[in-house]
């Protein structure tokens, strides 16, 4: 394979160049917003375009491995893989980053001088997120994870004057580091058990399992469990979710969308890459654990969301439930990958849209967002009210909204894998979930509005419209996306 190839790492390179340019321009041209917008926007769209080129290349050549290191025996493995999986992740993350930046542009405007750092960190975070999806090497996955996580710690605490924001950042940092450490320890133990850090190529984990049977799997089990826990934490699956509501609530409303969407996308991509790609032969070992955590996430997320009075916390807990539905696709092995992509890509846009509306209504630097503040939103701003209602219906899993298609396919995959009890838990929690989503919708359409009219900015308006269009379009006509994700498989 070509070691000098640019295309497989184009996404990361473009993002990093974009981030550096933003910082450079901030120094050279002064703190002028008008330069950052096009640079960051172009970087995200160019990354998505790079993903598209990767997709075409993979469709023609079947993809492959890059940047192998043949000299060191242990490390004799590719560092980068380009397949349908990573290419789709690139397209998705590029677009998600773009829409999220649109949604947080109000915050950028408010931040004034420090906004350059904000934009640069956003680009860096997304670069890290994609890195988690494009490498077969467990250590590189960890590096990507940390690149993204550290950026997000900073983003969460970006409003330094705000106690809530500080608290949010510190909490995220402490618990997040613990999770990262667990993941890394898991990688080390898995290396100890298999003698490999890589999923593909020579001396890979897959090769190891095709040639060996582990009779005393203690270390391997511990490694798998720790890796799972680390990633469960990142995607906020119960019982590793406690940070999410506090962090989401405390972080500036304008910045939460990307955190919530990006981490879900990359977290589930990494889970799939490692467990479906690498440890597929051990599926009987890890799938039951995943199924239990999935069920727990659905139940805990849904029941806790029922009693929330704050929309950001509600969305955080609903995110826990969504992590559960997404985990249900994981137990299906390779069959679950296309549904996982469908679910996570539509969810990413929905959650960005939802947080953008929060940012519009409560202000981009705000922390709390009581549901009562959204009373009569459909009268105060018909556009925002209706779009948020569409997004809520989408998340709740109503038919003809994208969430429904994603959920049903997740259930079918889980049922096919023999986890019918998980299907029952999933459908029941979906229904209970209607209660809190509909409570938000009722609040939006309440006629006794006591707030002022709201005039959303153009960028926020675009972000929310894109989210709602994705929700509605792929709910009514899911086949185009389903056709695409069918090819978005790991090698």
């Amino acid at each position, binding site marked *: 394979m070509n070691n000098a190839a640019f295309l497989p790492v184009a996404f990361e390179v473009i993002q990093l160049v974009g981030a550096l340019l933003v910082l450079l321009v901030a120094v050279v041209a002064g703190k002028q917003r008008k330069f950052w917008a096009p640079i960051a926007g172009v970087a995200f769209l160019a990354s998505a375009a790079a993903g598209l080129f990767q997709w075409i290349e993979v469709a023609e050549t079947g993809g492959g491995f890059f940047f192998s290191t043949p000299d060191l025996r242990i490390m004799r493995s590719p560092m980068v893989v380009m397949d349908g999986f990573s290419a789709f992740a690139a397209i998705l993350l590029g677009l998600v980053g773009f829409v999220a930046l649109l949604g947080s542009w109000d915050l950028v405007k408010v931040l004034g001088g420090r906004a350059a750092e904000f934009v640069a960190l956003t680009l860096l975070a997304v670069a890290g997120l994609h890195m988690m999806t494009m490498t077969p090497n467990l250590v590189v996955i960890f590096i990507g994870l940390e690149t993204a996580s550290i950026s997000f710690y900073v983003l969460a605490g970006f409003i330094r004057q705000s106690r809530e924001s500080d608290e949010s950042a510190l909490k995220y940092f402490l618990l997040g580091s613990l999770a990262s450490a667990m993941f890394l320890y898991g990688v080390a133990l898995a290396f100890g058990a298999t003698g490999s850090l890589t999923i593909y190529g020579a001396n890979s984990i897959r090769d190891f399992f095709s040639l060996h049977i582990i009779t005393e799997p203690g270390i391997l089990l511990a490694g798998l469990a720790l890796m799972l826990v680390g990633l469960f934490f990142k995607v906020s699956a119960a019982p590793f979710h406690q940070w999410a509501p506090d962090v989401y609530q405390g972080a500036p409303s304008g910045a939460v969308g990307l955190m919530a969407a990006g981490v879900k996308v990359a977290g589930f991509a990494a889970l799939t890459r490692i467990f479906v790609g690498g440890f597929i032969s051990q599926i009987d070992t890890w799938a039951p654990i995943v199924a239990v955590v999935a069920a727990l996430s659905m139940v805990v997320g849904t029941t806790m969301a029922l009693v929330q009075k704050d929309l950001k916390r509600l969305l955080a807990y609903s995110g826990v439930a969504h992590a559960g539905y997404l985990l249900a696709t994981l137990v299906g092995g390779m069959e679950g990958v296309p549904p996982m992509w469908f679910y996570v890509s539509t969810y990413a846009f929905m959650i960005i849209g939802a947080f953008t509306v929060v940012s519009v209504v409560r202000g981009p630097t705000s922390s709390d967002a009581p549901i009562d503040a959204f009373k009569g939103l459909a009268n105060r701003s018909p556009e925002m009210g209706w779009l948020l209602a569409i997004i809520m219906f989408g998340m709740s899993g109503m*038919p*003809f909204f994208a969430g429904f298609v994603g959920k049903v396919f997740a259930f*079918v995959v889980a*049922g096919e894998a023999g986890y019918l009890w998980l*299907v029952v838990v999933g459908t029941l929690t979906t*229904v209970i979930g209607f*209660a809190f989503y509909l409570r938000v919708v009722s609040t939006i359409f309440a006629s006794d509005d006591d707030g002022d009219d709201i005039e959303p900015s153009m960028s926020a308006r675009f972000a929310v419209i894109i989210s709602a269009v994705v929700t509605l379009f792929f709910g009514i006509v*899911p086949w185009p996306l389903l056709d695409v994700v069918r090819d978005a498989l790991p090698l």
Partner: protein
Amino acid sequence: MPVLSILIALPVIGAIVVALLPTRRQELVYPVALAMSIPPLAVALYMLWNFVPRDASFQFAESVVLVESFGISWSLAVDGISLFMVVLTALLFPISIAASRSITDRVKTYMVLMLILETGVLGVFLSLDLFVFFAFFEVVLIPMYMLISMWGSENRAYASLKFVLFTAVGSAFLLASIVALGVMTGSQMGTFANFDFRNMLQADLSSTAQLALFAGFGIAFAIKVPLFPFHTWLPDAHTEAPTAGSVILAGVLLKMGTYGFLRFNLTLFPEAAVDLAVPLAVLGVIGIVYGAAVAIVQPDIKRLVAYSSVSHMGFVVLGTFALTTQGLSGSVVTMISHGLTTSALFLLIGMIYERTHTRKIADYGGLAKVMPVYAGIFLFSAFASAGLPGLSGFIGEFTILIGSYLTLPVLTIIAAFGVILAAIYLLWAYERVFTGPVTNPKLEGLKDLGFRELAILVPLIVLIIGIGVYPKPVFDRIDSSVGIILDRIEATTDFEVPEYGTPDGVVELHYDAEGDHEDGGDH
């Protein structure tokens, strides 16, 4: 020509047209929405005209594969059972929209929701793919929820949420069962999953699987019907909904439940259906008596009619689980008849409510003197609902009783009291509202029904009389589809569908005045 796809698409197109009307021209919304609800009715009538009677196969069938790997397809068709549900739906929507003249607040949203609701309901009755069926089954929830919660009366928030949660809990079981059945069907066909109804019929299910899936489907439909003890959402939702919402709820939404029992529970799980027939019929009879008894003491006239629905739908369930030709055919006819009579009653109550803004029976008295035409139509509708011979309610419920007597004689005798109770609660309500002196001064000087209101009611009256006097064309189309269901039950279980001696015997013993129904279901 994909008639059924066009039929499903027409209301959506109408909704888009209404949504695109300029905001400044609010006065256009009502006539445009009304006009947009007419083409579906025309298509439905075209279907009714071209439907081949005495043919049990699915007609106007069309099928396009949507997701190959999951075995999901856009399969639509009608048979004798769904045909009338579709026509009823297509008829009641223009009527409800026409009756929504008094809606002035956010009228555009209202009309858009009504038209989307129509698409959802039509989709439920036409889909043969269970995935698509479920999608439509659920999509009905959103517009109905919003209609109740945005345009309902005082207690609307509570009623609408209760409606959604009850229905959605049922849907959860339905979805889980559909997924399980789809996966089982698929694995037996050697594919990942398959959701086509006709393929599911071929699936070989164990007794346990049949029972579990029957329960899963059954809970969803029992809540929708609603079957006692799942009925508690109904009085609230019906009472709080705006008039058109009540009409649609009672007229077609409840039928989604009984239709589901007929189409899916009896056909897909015949073994479980035979095993569980008696308990379900008992619940139906409890519903008949309980609904009627509670209706008698209601102080709110709308709530009274709501409870009468529980009673009437109990008859439908009794007929369905009698598992005889007459029972099933009678159920379908009662579904039609209940859709017509209850809609008429809700429309009438809506019309008087617009004038007086009260639904309390105690606030009325002597109304017949003030509004004689109104009183006459109300009495007519009450008689139709109570099952006066010569009107549609009689045909349906009497056929059910004939059918269920074959298999469930004791329950049938108890159920027959429901007919008497219906006469009591309706006529007693009539007496209190319409007869005697005018006690409430506010009632004096009320205008009788206008031309628009009469035009809304006349089609219902004509159909109630038409089916009551000459039900043969209806039975001709229902009987063979019902026969297929029973044939399948006989073929797959050791249950034998009992028959009354010779077909001629049916004529002479049980049909007299309007005895056009000679061959009573023995095609």
